[in-house]
Protein backbone atom coordinates (compact mmCIF):
# COMPACT_ATOMS: atom_id res chain seq x y z
CA UNK A 1 0.00 0.00 0.00
CA UNK A 2 1.31 3.42 -0.81
CA UNK A 3 1.81 5.90 1.92
CA UNK A 4 -1.02 8.39 2.26
CA UNK A 5 -0.03 11.96 1.51
CA UNK A 6 -1.03 13.16 4.92
CA UNK A 7 -1.36 11.20 8.13
CA UNK A 8 -2.73 13.00 11.13
CA UNK A 9 -2.40 11.12 14.39
CA UNK A 10 -3.98 12.12 17.66
CA UNK A 11 -3.54 15.79 16.85
CA UNK A 12 -4.29 18.13 19.73
CA UNK A 13 -4.26 21.90 19.70
CA UNK A 14 -5.02 23.46 23.05
CA UNK A 15 -4.99 27.15 23.78
CA UNK A 16 -4.51 28.71 27.16
CA UNK A 17 -7.36 31.09 27.72
CA UNK A 18 -7.25 33.62 30.49
CA UNK A 19 -10.34 33.27 32.61
CA UNK A 20 -10.74 35.70 35.47
CA UNK A 21 -8.22 36.12 38.22
CA UNK A 22 -7.51 39.66 39.35
CA UNK A 23 -3.93 39.40 40.49
CA UNK A 24 -2.97 36.00 39.26
CA UNK A 25 -4.14 35.02 35.85
CA UNK A 26 -6.17 31.88 35.87
CA UNK A 27 -5.64 29.94 32.68
CA UNK A 28 -8.01 27.33 31.33
CA UNK A 29 -7.17 25.04 28.46
CA UNK A 30 -9.35 25.44 25.41
CA UNK A 31 -9.28 22.22 23.50
CA UNK A 32 -9.87 23.49 19.98
CA UNK A 33 -8.71 20.25 18.42
CA UNK A 34 -8.68 17.27 20.71
CA UNK A 35 -7.17 14.09 19.44
CA UNK A 36 -7.95 13.91 15.74
CA UNK A 37 -6.63 11.19 13.48
CA UNK A 38 -7.19 10.70 9.79
CA UNK A 39 -5.43 9.97 6.52
CA UNK A 40 -5.61 11.83 3.29
CA UNK A 41 -4.67 10.15 0.03
CA UNK A 42 -3.23 11.97 -2.96
CA UNK A 43 -5.93 13.60 -5.04
CA UNK A 44 -8.60 13.03 -2.45
CA UNK A 45 -10.92 15.62 -0.97
CA UNK A 46 -11.88 15.36 2.64
CA UNK A 47 -14.74 17.57 3.72
CA UNK A 48 -14.65 18.78 7.29
CA UNK A 49 -17.96 19.96 8.65
CA UNK A 50 -19.19 21.23 11.96
CA UNK A 51 -20.67 24.29 13.60
CA UNK A 52 -18.54 27.35 14.08
CA UNK A 53 -16.33 26.92 17.09
CA UNK A 54 -15.84 23.21 16.59
CA UNK A 55 -12.17 23.57 15.70
CA UNK A 56 -12.39 23.23 11.93
CA UNK A 57 -10.23 26.21 11.10
CA UNK A 58 -7.78 25.45 13.88
CA UNK A 59 -7.34 21.98 12.43
CA UNK A 60 -6.51 23.37 9.00
CA UNK A 61 -3.98 25.79 10.41
CA UNK A 62 -2.39 23.19 12.63
CA UNK A 63 -1.88 20.89 9.67
CA UNK A 64 -0.14 23.66 7.75
CA UNK A 65 1.93 24.43 10.86
CA UNK A 66 0.55 27.94 11.04
CA UNK A 67 -0.41 27.10 14.60
CA UNK A 68 1.70 24.91 16.85
CA UNK A 69 0.22 21.54 17.73
CA UNK A 70 0.07 20.77 21.43
CA UNK A 71 0.69 17.09 20.81
CA UNK A 72 0.22 14.48 18.16
CA UNK A 73 1.74 14.34 14.73
CA UNK A 74 1.06 15.53 11.23
CA UNK A 75 3.02 13.37 8.82
CA UNK A 76 3.64 14.45 5.26
CA UNK A 77 4.57 11.40 3.21
CA UNK A 78 5.68 9.78 6.43
CA UNK A 79 7.68 12.75 7.68
CA UNK A 80 6.46 14.46 10.84
CA UNK A 81 5.95 18.15 10.12
CA UNK A 82 5.66 19.16 13.75
CA UNK A 83 9.28 18.17 14.35
CA UNK A 84 10.82 20.07 11.44
CA UNK A 85 13.10 23.05 11.82
CA UNK A 86 12.42 26.31 10.05
CA UNK A 87 14.32 25.65 6.84
CA UNK A 88 12.85 22.18 6.38
CA UNK A 89 9.41 23.49 7.11
CA UNK A 90 9.81 26.17 4.49
CA UNK A 91 10.83 23.54 1.97
CA UNK A 92 7.74 21.48 2.78
CA UNK A 93 5.40 24.41 2.77
CA UNK A 94 5.64 24.91 -0.92
CA UNK A 95 3.56 21.79 -1.35
CA UNK A 96 0.75 22.93 0.89
CA UNK A 97 -1.30 26.03 0.50
CA UNK A 98 -4.41 27.54 1.97
CA UNK A 99 -7.43 29.40 0.63
CA UNK A 100 -9.03 31.64 3.21
CA UNK A 101 -12.55 32.42 4.18
CA UNK A 102 -12.49 36.19 3.90
CA UNK A 103 -11.11 36.90 0.45
CA UNK A 104 -10.43 40.59 0.99
CA UNK A 105 -8.79 40.22 4.40
CA UNK A 106 -6.44 37.58 3.08
CA UNK A 107 -4.96 39.96 0.50
CA UNK A 108 -2.48 42.67 1.44
CA UNK A 109 -4.29 45.97 0.75
CA UNK A 110 -1.06 47.59 -0.44
CA UNK A 111 -0.11 45.00 -2.99
CA UNK A 112 -1.32 44.75 -6.52
CA UNK A 113 -3.07 41.60 -7.67
CA UNK A 114 -0.01 40.66 -9.70
CA UNK A 115 2.34 41.00 -6.73
CA UNK A 116 0.02 38.97 -4.54
CA UNK A 117 -0.16 36.12 -7.01
CA UNK A 118 3.59 36.25 -7.58
CA UNK A 119 4.50 36.20 -3.91
CA UNK A 120 4.88 32.41 -3.48
CA UNK A 121 7.00 32.34 -6.63
CA UNK A 122 9.27 35.01 -5.25
CA UNK A 123 9.67 33.02 -2.05
CA UNK A 124 10.38 29.69 -3.65
CA UNK A 125 11.67 30.17 -7.15
CA UNK A 126 14.14 32.89 -6.45
CA UNK A 127 16.03 32.30 -9.67
CA UNK A 128 13.14 33.35 -11.89
CA UNK A 129 13.55 36.44 -13.99
CA UNK A 130 10.91 39.08 -13.69
CA UNK A 131 9.75 38.30 -17.21
CA UNK A 132 9.26 34.65 -16.25
CA UNK A 133 7.35 35.63 -13.13
CA UNK A 134 5.17 37.89 -15.20
CA UNK A 135 4.41 35.11 -17.63
CA UNK A 136 3.47 32.72 -14.84
CA UNK A 137 1.25 35.33 -13.18
CA UNK A 138 -0.47 36.04 -16.43
CA UNK A 139 -1.08 32.37 -17.03
CA UNK A 140 -2.50 31.97 -13.53
CA UNK A 141 -4.77 34.97 -13.95
CA UNK A 142 -6.19 33.55 -17.12
CA UNK A 143 -6.72 30.19 -15.49
CA UNK A 144 -8.68 31.60 -12.59
CA UNK A 145 -10.69 33.82 -14.91
CA UNK A 146 -9.22 37.22 -14.23
CA UNK A 147 -8.38 39.64 -16.99
CA UNK A 148 -4.60 40.02 -17.19
CA UNK A 149 -5.13 43.75 -17.55
CA UNK A 150 -6.26 43.79 -13.90
CA UNK A 151 -2.76 42.94 -12.76
CA UNK A 152 -2.10 46.41 -11.36
CA UNK A 153 -5.31 46.75 -9.44
CA UNK A 154 -5.46 46.66 -5.67
CA UNK A 155 -7.62 44.21 -3.72
CA UNK A 156 -10.28 46.74 -2.78
CA UNK A 157 -10.99 47.33 -6.45
CA UNK A 158 -12.13 43.74 -6.91
CA UNK A 159 -15.39 42.05 -5.99
CA UNK A 160 -15.42 39.32 -3.36
CA UNK A 161 -15.47 36.59 -5.96
CA UNK A 162 -12.57 38.13 -7.85
CA UNK A 163 -10.60 38.48 -4.62
CA UNK A 164 -11.14 34.81 -3.95
CA UNK A 165 -9.90 34.04 -7.46
CA UNK A 166 -6.75 35.99 -6.66
CA UNK A 167 -6.43 33.98 -3.45
CA UNK A 168 -6.83 30.75 -5.39
CA UNK A 169 -4.29 31.84 -7.99
CA UNK A 170 -1.82 32.57 -5.20
CA UNK A 171 -2.44 29.15 -3.66
CA UNK A 172 -2.13 27.29 -6.96
CA UNK A 173 0.82 29.00 -8.59
CA UNK A 174 3.33 26.65 -6.97
CA UNK A 175 1.27 23.62 -8.00
CA UNK A 176 0.81 22.38 -4.47
CA UNK A 177 -0.05 18.84 -3.47
CA UNK A 178 -2.31 19.79 -0.60
CA UNK A 179 -4.67 22.71 -0.35
CA UNK A 180 -6.61 23.55 2.77
CA UNK A 181 -9.76 25.43 1.86
CA UNK A 182 -11.01 27.20 4.96
CA UNK A 183 -14.63 28.04 4.20
CA UNK A 184 -13.60 29.41 0.82
CA UNK A 185 -17.09 30.29 -0.33
CA UNK A 186 -19.04 31.12 2.80
CA UNK A 187 -18.24 34.83 2.52
CA UNK A 188 -19.27 34.96 -1.13
CA UNK A 189 -22.57 35.64 -2.80
CA UNK A 190 -24.55 32.51 -3.50
CA UNK A 191 -24.43 33.25 -7.21
CA UNK A 192 -20.64 33.00 -7.41
CA UNK A 193 -20.15 30.14 -4.99
CA UNK A 194 -20.63 27.50 -7.65
CA UNK A 195 -18.09 29.16 -9.94
CA UNK A 196 -15.46 29.27 -7.25
CA UNK A 197 -16.15 25.68 -6.18
CA UNK A 198 -15.89 24.48 -9.76
CA UNK A 199 -12.67 26.39 -10.20
CA UNK A 200 -11.24 24.65 -7.15
CA UNK A 201 -12.36 21.28 -8.49
CA UNK A 202 -10.82 22.01 -11.88
CA UNK A 203 -7.50 22.72 -10.26
CA UNK A 204 -7.78 19.65 -8.14
CA UNK A 205 -8.31 17.44 -11.15
CA UNK A 206 -5.62 19.09 -13.24
CA UNK A 207 -2.95 18.99 -10.55
CA UNK A 208 -4.17 15.95 -8.62
CA UNK A 209 -4.35 17.98 -5.43
CA UNK A 210 -5.45 16.61 -2.09
CA UNK A 211 -7.91 18.92 -0.49
CA UNK A 212 -9.15 19.55 2.99
CA UNK A 213 -12.40 21.34 2.46
CA UNK A 214 -13.57 23.02 5.62
CA UNK A 215 -17.11 24.27 5.66
CA UNK A 216 -20.29 24.45 7.66
CA UNK A 217 -22.32 24.23 4.48
CA UNK A 218 -23.25 20.60 3.98
CA UNK A 219 -24.48 20.93 0.43
CA UNK A 220 -21.20 22.45 -0.70
CA UNK A 221 -19.23 19.74 1.07
CA UNK A 222 -21.36 17.09 -0.54
CA UNK A 223 -20.62 18.49 -3.94
CA UNK A 224 -16.86 18.58 -3.60
CA UNK A 225 -15.78 15.86 -1.15
CA UNK A 226 -15.15 12.19 -1.45
CA UNK A 227 -15.05 11.61 2.28
CA UNK A 228 -16.52 13.71 5.05
CA UNK A 229 -15.44 14.18 8.64
CA UNK A 230 -17.91 15.59 11.14
CA UNK A 231 -16.41 17.51 14.02
CA UNK A 232 -17.96 18.57 17.29
CA UNK A 233 -16.01 20.45 19.96
CA UNK A 234 -12.68 19.42 18.53
CA UNK A 235 -13.52 15.73 18.25
CA UNK A 236 -14.46 13.47 15.37
CA UNK A 237 -18.05 12.36 15.56
CA UNK A 238 -18.22 10.49 12.30
CA UNK A 239 -15.93 9.91 9.36
CA UNK A 240 -17.16 8.17 6.25
CA UNK A 241 -17.50 8.28 2.50
CA UNK A 242 -19.70 11.00 1.21
CA UNK A 243 -22.54 8.74 0.22
CA UNK A 244 -22.53 6.98 3.56
CA UNK A 245 -22.60 10.26 5.45
CA UNK A 246 -25.41 11.73 3.42
CA UNK A 247 -27.29 8.49 2.77
CA UNK A 248 -26.94 6.61 6.02
CA UNK A 249 -25.54 8.79 8.77
CA UNK A 250 -24.96 6.84 11.98
CA UNK A 251 -24.15 9.50 14.50
CA UNK A 252 -27.03 11.47 16.04
CA UNK A 253 -25.18 14.71 15.40
CA UNK A 254 -24.63 13.94 11.74
CA UNK A 255 -28.24 12.89 11.42
CA UNK A 256 -29.33 16.21 12.85
CA UNK A 257 -27.02 18.16 10.55
CA UNK A 258 -28.18 16.30 7.47
CA UNK A 259 -31.84 16.66 8.30
CA UNK A 260 -31.36 20.41 8.60
CA UNK A 261 -30.17 20.74 5.02
CA UNK A 262 -33.07 22.14 3.03
CA UNK A 263 -34.28 20.14 0.05
CA UNK A 264 -35.18 22.33 -2.92
CA UNK A 265 -38.62 20.73 -3.21
CA UNK A 266 -41.28 22.08 -0.85
CA UNK A 267 -43.28 18.81 -0.83
CA UNK A 268 -40.36 16.69 0.21
CA UNK A 269 -39.02 19.42 2.42
CA UNK A 270 -42.20 19.42 4.47
CA UNK A 271 -42.45 15.66 4.54
CA UNK A 272 -38.93 14.85 5.62
CA UNK A 273 -38.29 13.79 9.19
CA UNK A 274 -36.34 16.24 11.24
CA UNK A 275 -33.96 15.58 14.05
CA UNK A 276 -33.62 18.72 16.01
CA UNK A 277 -30.57 19.64 17.99
CA UNK A 278 -31.66 21.44 21.09
CA UNK A 279 -29.74 24.20 22.76
CA UNK A 280 -26.46 25.87 21.98
CA UNK A 281 -22.96 24.62 21.58
CA UNK A 282 -21.60 24.14 25.11
CA UNK A 283 -18.62 26.26 26.08
CA UNK A 284 -15.46 24.65 24.76
CA UNK A 285 -13.79 25.76 27.98
CA UNK A 286 -16.02 23.42 29.91
CA UNK A 287 -16.93 20.53 27.65
CA UNK A 288 -19.42 17.92 28.88
CA UNK A 289 -18.06 14.75 30.45
CA UNK A 290 -18.19 11.51 28.52
CA UNK A 291 -19.56 12.16 25.05
CA UNK A 292 -19.17 15.87 24.24
CA UNK A 293 -22.44 15.83 22.33
CA UNK A 294 -24.55 14.42 25.15
CA UNK A 295 -26.02 17.75 26.28
CA UNK A 296 -27.83 18.06 22.98
CA UNK A 297 -28.21 14.46 21.93
CA UNK A 298 -31.72 13.02 21.64
CA UNK A 299 -30.40 9.50 22.28
CA UNK A 300 -28.24 10.25 25.31
CA UNK A 301 -28.32 7.77 28.18
CA UNK A 302 -26.35 7.33 31.39
CA UNK A 303 -23.37 5.73 29.80
CA UNK A 304 -22.89 8.77 27.56
CA UNK A 305 -22.07 10.92 30.57
CA UNK A 306 -19.68 8.38 32.02
CA UNK A 307 -17.45 7.15 29.23
CA UNK A 308 -16.08 8.81 26.16
CA UNK A 309 -17.21 6.93 23.04
CA UNK A 310 -14.33 5.78 20.88
CA UNK A 311 -14.40 5.67 17.11
CA UNK A 312 -15.82 2.34 16.04
CA UNK A 313 -16.05 0.89 12.60
CA UNK A 314 -19.56 0.91 11.22
CA UNK A 315 -18.78 -0.39 7.78
CA UNK A 316 -15.96 -0.09 5.32
CA UNK A 317 -14.22 3.23 5.87
CA UNK A 318 -17.02 4.34 8.12
CA UNK A 319 -16.20 5.34 11.67
CA UNK A 320 -18.55 6.57 14.35
CA UNK A 321 -17.96 7.80 17.88
CA UNK A 322 -21.20 6.98 19.63
CA UNK A 323 -22.34 4.41 22.16
CA UNK A 324 -25.69 3.95 20.52
CA UNK A 325 -25.01 4.13 16.81
CA UNK A 326 -26.50 0.68 16.25
CA UNK A 327 -29.94 1.65 17.54
Amino acid at each position, binding site marked *: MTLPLLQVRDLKVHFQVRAGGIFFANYLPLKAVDGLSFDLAAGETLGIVGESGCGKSTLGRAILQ*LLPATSGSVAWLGKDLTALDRAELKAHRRHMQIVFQDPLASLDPRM*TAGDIIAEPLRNYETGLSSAAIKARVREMMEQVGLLPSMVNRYPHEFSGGQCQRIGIARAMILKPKLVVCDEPVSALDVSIRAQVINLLMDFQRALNISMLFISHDLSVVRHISRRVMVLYLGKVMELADRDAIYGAPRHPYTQALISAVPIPDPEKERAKPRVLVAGDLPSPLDPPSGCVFRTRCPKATNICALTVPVLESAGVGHEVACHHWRD
Partner: protein
Amino acid sequence: MNGIKFTSAPAAPGEIAGEFTGRSLWQDAWRRLLANRAAVAGMIILAGIALASVIGPFLLPWSYDSIDWEHIEALPPQFSTGHYLGTDSLGRDLLARTLFGGRISLMVGLLATTVALLIGVTVGAVAGFVGGRTDQLLMRFVDLMYSVPLTFFVIILMVVFGRNFALMFLAIGAVEWLTMARIVRGQTLTLRNKEFIEAARASGGSTANIIARHILPNVLGVVMIYVTLTIPQVILLESFLSFLGLGIQEPMTSWGMLINDGAAELEINPRTLIIPATFMTTTLFCLNFLGDGLRDALDPKDR
Protein backbone atom coordinates in the same frame (compact mmCIF):
# COMPACT_ATOMS: atom_id res chain seq x y z
CA MET B 1 0.64 24.41 -16.36
CA ASN B 2 0.94 23.41 -19.99
CA GLY B 3 -1.77 25.88 -20.88
CA ILE B 4 -4.76 24.10 -19.40
CA LYS B 5 -7.88 26.12 -19.84
CA PHE B 6 -10.69 25.60 -17.40
CA THR B 7 -14.26 25.69 -18.49
CA SER B 8 -15.34 27.25 -15.23
CA ALA B 9 -13.12 30.23 -15.78
CA PRO B 10 -15.14 32.72 -17.74
CA ALA B 11 -13.43 33.05 -21.10
CA ALA B 12 -10.89 35.72 -20.41
CA PRO B 13 -10.44 37.73 -23.56
CA GLY B 14 -6.72 37.87 -22.98
CA GLU B 15 -6.19 39.46 -26.37
CA ILE B 16 -7.97 42.68 -25.59
CA ALA B 17 -5.87 43.03 -22.45
CA GLY B 18 -3.40 45.57 -23.67
CA GLU B 19 -1.27 46.42 -20.70
CA PHE B 20 0.51 43.74 -18.76
CA THR B 21 3.39 45.47 -17.13
CA GLY B 22 3.47 44.97 -13.40
CA ARG B 23 3.60 48.18 -11.43
CA SER B 24 4.72 48.35 -7.86
CA LEU B 25 3.19 50.25 -4.98
CA TRP B 26 6.08 52.71 -5.22
CA GLN B 27 5.54 53.54 -8.84
CA ASP B 28 1.85 53.98 -8.17
CA ALA B 29 2.55 56.13 -5.15
CA TRP B 30 4.89 58.35 -7.14
CA ARG B 31 2.28 58.82 -9.82
CA ARG B 32 -0.37 59.72 -7.28
CA LEU B 33 2.00 62.08 -5.50
CA LEU B 34 2.65 63.96 -8.73
CA ALA B 35 -1.08 64.34 -9.19
CA ASN B 36 -1.37 66.10 -5.85
CA ARG B 37 -0.87 69.81 -6.48
CA ALA B 38 -0.20 70.90 -2.91
CA ALA B 39 2.39 68.19 -2.48
CA VAL B 40 4.13 69.06 -5.72
CA ALA B 41 4.20 72.76 -4.84
CA GLY B 42 5.58 71.82 -1.43
CA MET B 43 8.26 69.70 -3.02
CA ILE B 44 9.31 72.46 -5.42
CA ILE B 45 9.49 75.15 -2.73
CA LEU B 46 11.37 72.80 -0.41
CA ALA B 47 13.83 71.98 -3.12
CA GLY B 48 14.27 75.70 -3.79
CA ILE B 49 14.96 76.45 -0.13
CA ALA B 50 17.33 73.52 0.18
CA LEU B 51 19.19 74.51 -2.96
CA ALA B 52 19.45 78.13 -1.84
CA SER B 53 20.77 76.99 1.52
CA VAL B 54 23.40 74.80 -0.03
CA ILE B 55 24.75 77.00 -2.80
CA GLY B 56 23.38 80.41 -1.82
CA PRO B 57 26.10 81.27 0.71
CA PHE B 58 28.77 80.86 -2.00
CA LEU B 59 27.09 83.35 -4.31
CA LEU B 60 26.48 86.15 -1.85
CA PRO B 61 28.98 88.99 -1.50
CA TRP B 62 29.04 88.59 2.29
CA SER B 63 29.75 85.44 4.25
CA TYR B 64 27.69 84.45 7.29
CA ASP B 65 30.37 85.37 9.81
CA SER B 66 32.00 88.44 8.33
CA ILE B 67 31.12 91.72 9.96
CA ASP B 68 30.53 94.76 7.79
CA TRP B 69 32.21 97.34 10.04
CA GLU B 70 30.69 100.20 8.14
CA HIS B 71 27.18 99.04 8.91
CA ILE B 72 27.51 97.81 12.42
CA GLU B 73 24.01 99.05 13.14
CA ALA B 74 21.22 96.90 11.86
CA LEU B 75 20.87 97.99 8.28
CA PRO B 76 17.65 97.93 6.28
CA PRO B 77 17.76 96.01 3.01
CA GLN B 78 19.76 97.77 0.31
CA PHE B 79 21.42 96.73 -2.90
CA SER B 80 24.32 99.16 -2.99
CA THR B 81 26.11 97.46 -0.11
CA GLY B 82 25.16 93.93 -1.13
CA HIS B 83 23.05 93.37 2.02
CA TYR B 84 19.95 92.32 0.13
CA LEU B 85 18.01 91.69 3.33
CA GLY B 86 19.95 94.02 5.55
CA THR B 87 22.24 93.16 8.44
CA ASP B 88 21.75 92.11 12.02
CA SER B 89 22.71 94.23 15.01
CA LEU B 90 26.33 93.11 14.70
CA GLY B 91 26.55 94.08 11.05
CA ARG B 92 26.44 90.57 9.62
CA ASP B 93 24.52 89.96 6.43
CA LEU B 94 21.09 88.60 7.30
CA LEU B 95 20.46 86.74 4.08
CA ALA B 96 23.79 84.96 4.30
CA ARG B 97 23.09 84.02 7.87
CA THR B 98 19.59 82.81 7.15
CA LEU B 99 20.72 80.65 4.24
CA PHE B 100 23.62 79.27 6.23
CA GLY B 101 21.29 78.63 9.16
CA GLY B 102 19.03 76.77 6.76
CA ARG B 103 21.86 74.39 5.99
CA ILE B 104 22.24 73.46 9.61
CA SER B 105 18.54 73.28 10.37
CA LEU B 106 17.65 71.23 7.32
CA MET B 107 20.58 68.92 7.94
CA VAL B 108 19.60 68.39 11.56
CA GLY B 109 16.00 67.88 10.56
CA LEU B 110 16.88 65.42 7.87
CA LEU B 111 19.60 63.43 9.61
CA ALA B 112 18.03 63.23 13.05
CA THR B 113 14.69 62.27 11.57
CA THR B 114 16.31 59.63 9.40
CA VAL B 115 18.04 58.19 12.44
CA ALA B 116 14.75 58.22 14.34
CA LEU B 117 12.95 56.69 11.40
CA LEU B 118 15.37 53.84 10.86
CA ILE B 119 15.74 52.83 14.48
CA GLY B 120 12.15 53.51 15.46
CA VAL B 121 10.52 51.64 12.60
CA THR B 122 12.84 48.66 12.89
CA VAL B 123 12.47 48.31 16.63
CA GLY B 124 8.73 48.92 16.54
CA ALA B 125 8.06 46.48 13.74
CA VAL B 126 10.21 43.75 15.22
CA ALA B 127 8.79 44.19 18.72
CA GLY B 128 5.23 44.21 17.45
CA PHE B 129 5.59 41.35 15.03
CA VAL B 130 7.80 38.96 16.93
CA GLY B 131 6.07 39.69 20.22
CA GLY B 132 6.66 37.72 23.38
CA ARG B 133 9.93 38.22 25.19
CA THR B 134 11.53 40.22 22.37
CA ASP B 135 8.67 42.68 22.57
CA GLN B 136 8.94 42.95 26.35
CA LEU B 137 12.66 43.52 26.21
CA LEU B 138 12.61 46.14 23.47
CA MET B 139 9.69 48.05 24.89
CA ARG B 140 11.08 48.13 28.44
CA PHE B 141 14.25 49.56 26.93
CA VAL B 142 12.17 52.23 25.21
CA ASP B 143 10.48 53.04 28.53
CA LEU B 144 13.86 53.31 30.16
CA MET B 145 15.11 55.70 27.51
CA TYR B 146 11.97 57.77 27.86
CA SER B 147 12.75 58.39 31.47
CA VAL B 148 16.19 59.89 30.73
CA PRO B 149 15.89 63.66 30.24
CA LEU B 150 17.18 64.81 26.86
CA THR B 151 19.55 67.49 28.14
CA PHE B 152 21.05 65.11 30.62
CA PHE B 153 21.54 62.58 27.87
CA VAL B 154 23.19 65.13 25.61
CA ILE B 155 25.49 66.34 28.37
CA ILE B 156 26.61 62.78 29.07
CA LEU B 157 27.31 62.23 25.39
CA MET B 158 29.33 65.45 25.26
CA VAL B 159 31.32 64.47 28.31
CA VAL B 160 32.11 61.02 26.97
CA PHE B 161 32.79 61.83 23.35
CA GLY B 162 33.78 65.45 23.57
CA ARG B 163 32.13 68.32 21.77
CA ASN B 164 31.09 67.20 18.39
CA PHE B 165 28.73 68.58 15.86
CA ALA B 166 27.57 65.15 14.67
CA LEU B 167 26.85 64.09 18.22
CA MET B 168 23.89 66.41 18.35
CA PHE B 169 22.22 64.69 15.41
CA LEU B 170 22.77 61.40 17.09
CA ALA B 171 21.43 62.58 20.41
CA ILE B 172 18.27 64.06 18.93
CA GLY B 173 17.71 61.04 16.73
CA ALA B 174 18.26 58.74 19.68
CA VAL B 175 15.50 60.46 21.58
CA GLU B 176 13.02 60.90 18.76
CA TRP B 177 12.96 57.24 17.76
CA LEU B 178 11.26 56.25 20.98
CA THR B 179 7.86 57.61 20.05
CA MET B 180 8.25 56.28 16.54
CA ALA B 181 8.94 52.81 17.90
CA ARG B 182 5.82 52.91 20.05
CA ILE B 183 3.63 54.08 17.21
CA VAL B 184 4.95 51.47 14.80
CA ARG B 185 4.66 48.72 17.38
CA GLY B 186 1.02 49.56 18.00
CA GLN B 187 0.25 49.53 14.30
CA THR B 188 2.12 46.28 13.82
CA LEU B 189 0.18 44.61 16.60
CA THR B 190 -3.08 45.30 14.85
CA LEU B 191 -1.67 44.08 11.54
CA ARG B 192 -0.09 40.96 12.92
CA ASN B 193 -3.30 39.01 13.26
CA LYS B 194 -4.69 39.94 9.88
CA GLU B 195 -5.34 37.07 7.55
CA PHE B 196 -3.05 38.35 4.84
CA ILE B 197 -0.11 37.98 7.20
CA GLU B 198 -1.08 34.37 7.77
CA ALA B 199 -1.39 34.00 4.03
CA ALA B 200 2.11 35.36 3.60
CA ARG B 201 3.39 32.83 6.09
CA ALA B 202 1.63 30.04 4.27
CA SER B 203 3.23 31.25 1.04
CA GLY B 204 6.62 30.61 2.58
CA GLY B 205 7.59 34.08 3.76
CA SER B 206 10.15 34.34 6.54
CA THR B 207 9.67 36.75 9.42
CA ALA B 208 12.06 39.33 7.98
CA ASN B 209 10.38 38.91 4.65
CA ILE B 210 6.91 39.49 6.01
CA ILE B 211 7.98 42.54 7.98
CA ALA B 212 9.61 44.08 4.93
CA ARG B 213 6.96 43.19 2.40
CA HIS B 214 3.74 43.39 4.35
CA ILE B 215 4.14 45.15 7.67
CA LEU B 216 6.25 48.13 6.61
CA PRO B 217 4.19 49.22 3.59
CA ASN B 218 1.10 49.07 5.77
CA VAL B 219 2.49 51.21 8.59
CA LEU B 220 4.07 53.71 6.24
CA GLY B 221 1.08 56.03 6.13
CA VAL B 222 1.14 56.63 9.85
CA VAL B 223 4.93 56.81 9.88
CA MET B 224 4.84 59.49 7.19
CA ILE B 225 2.55 61.67 9.26
CA TYR B 226 4.74 61.26 12.28
CA VAL B 227 7.83 62.13 10.27
CA THR B 228 6.34 65.41 9.15
CA LEU B 229 5.63 66.16 12.78
CA THR B 230 9.11 65.13 13.86
CA ILE B 231 11.11 67.31 11.50
CA PRO B 232 9.88 70.63 12.94
CA GLN B 233 10.24 69.23 16.43
CA VAL B 234 13.83 68.33 15.72
CA ILE B 235 14.60 71.73 14.25
CA LEU B 236 13.26 73.38 17.38
CA LEU B 237 15.05 70.95 19.62
CA GLU B 238 18.32 71.88 17.95
CA SER B 239 17.82 75.57 18.73
CA PHE B 240 17.00 74.66 22.30
CA LEU B 241 20.19 72.65 22.67
CA SER B 242 22.19 75.40 20.99
CA PHE B 243 20.66 77.94 23.35
CA LEU B 244 21.93 75.87 26.27
CA GLY B 245 25.35 75.84 24.67
CA LEU B 246 25.16 72.15 23.85
CA GLY B 247 24.59 72.46 20.14
CA ILE B 248 26.28 74.61 17.56
CA GLN B 249 28.14 77.74 18.55
CA GLU B 250 28.33 81.31 17.30
CA PRO B 251 29.17 82.51 14.74
CA MET B 252 27.64 79.39 13.23
CA THR B 253 23.93 79.62 13.28
CA SER B 254 20.67 77.89 12.55
CA TRP B 255 17.09 79.00 11.99
CA GLY B 256 16.23 78.24 15.55
CA MET B 257 19.06 80.40 16.83
CA LEU B 258 18.30 83.22 14.43
CA ILE B 259 14.70 83.25 15.55
CA ASN B 260 15.84 83.26 19.15
CA ASP B 261 18.09 86.23 18.52
CA GLY B 262 15.49 87.98 16.44
CA ALA B 263 12.85 87.57 19.13
CA ALA B 264 15.14 89.40 21.55
CA GLU B 265 15.20 92.49 19.41
CA LEU B 266 11.70 92.27 18.09
CA GLU B 267 10.82 95.80 19.11
CA ILE B 268 13.79 97.58 17.65
CA ASN B 269 14.41 95.41 14.68
CA PRO B 270 11.53 93.09 13.70
CA ARG B 271 13.25 92.23 10.41
CA THR B 272 15.75 89.98 12.17
CA LEU B 273 12.89 87.84 13.43
CA ILE B 274 10.61 87.95 10.43
CA ILE B 275 13.13 86.84 7.82
CA PRO B 276 14.37 83.58 9.36
CA ALA B 277 10.88 82.87 10.70
CA THR B 278 9.46 83.16 7.19
CA PHE B 279 11.97 80.66 5.88
CA MET B 280 11.27 78.25 8.66
CA THR B 281 7.49 78.40 8.56
CA THR B 282 7.50 78.07 4.77
CA THR B 283 9.62 74.96 5.12
CA LEU B 284 7.34 73.48 7.77
CA PHE B 285 4.24 74.22 5.72
CA CYS B 286 5.74 72.55 2.68
CA LEU B 287 6.73 69.55 4.77
CA ASN B 288 3.20 69.17 6.00
CA PHE B 289 1.75 69.31 2.53
CA LEU B 290 4.32 66.86 1.32
CA GLY B 291 3.66 64.53 4.25
CA ASP B 292 -0.07 64.61 3.65
CA GLY B 293 0.49 63.97 -0.03
CA LEU B 294 2.78 61.05 0.70
CA ARG B 295 0.33 59.46 3.07
CA ASP B 296 -2.46 59.70 0.52
CA ALA B 297 -0.20 58.49 -2.26
CA LEU B 298 0.79 55.42 -0.28
CA ASP B 299 -2.78 54.42 0.37
CA PRO B 300 -4.16 52.68 -2.71
CA LYS B 301 -7.69 53.08 -1.40
CA ASP B 302 -7.40 56.83 -1.66
CA ARG B 303 -8.02 57.96 -5.18
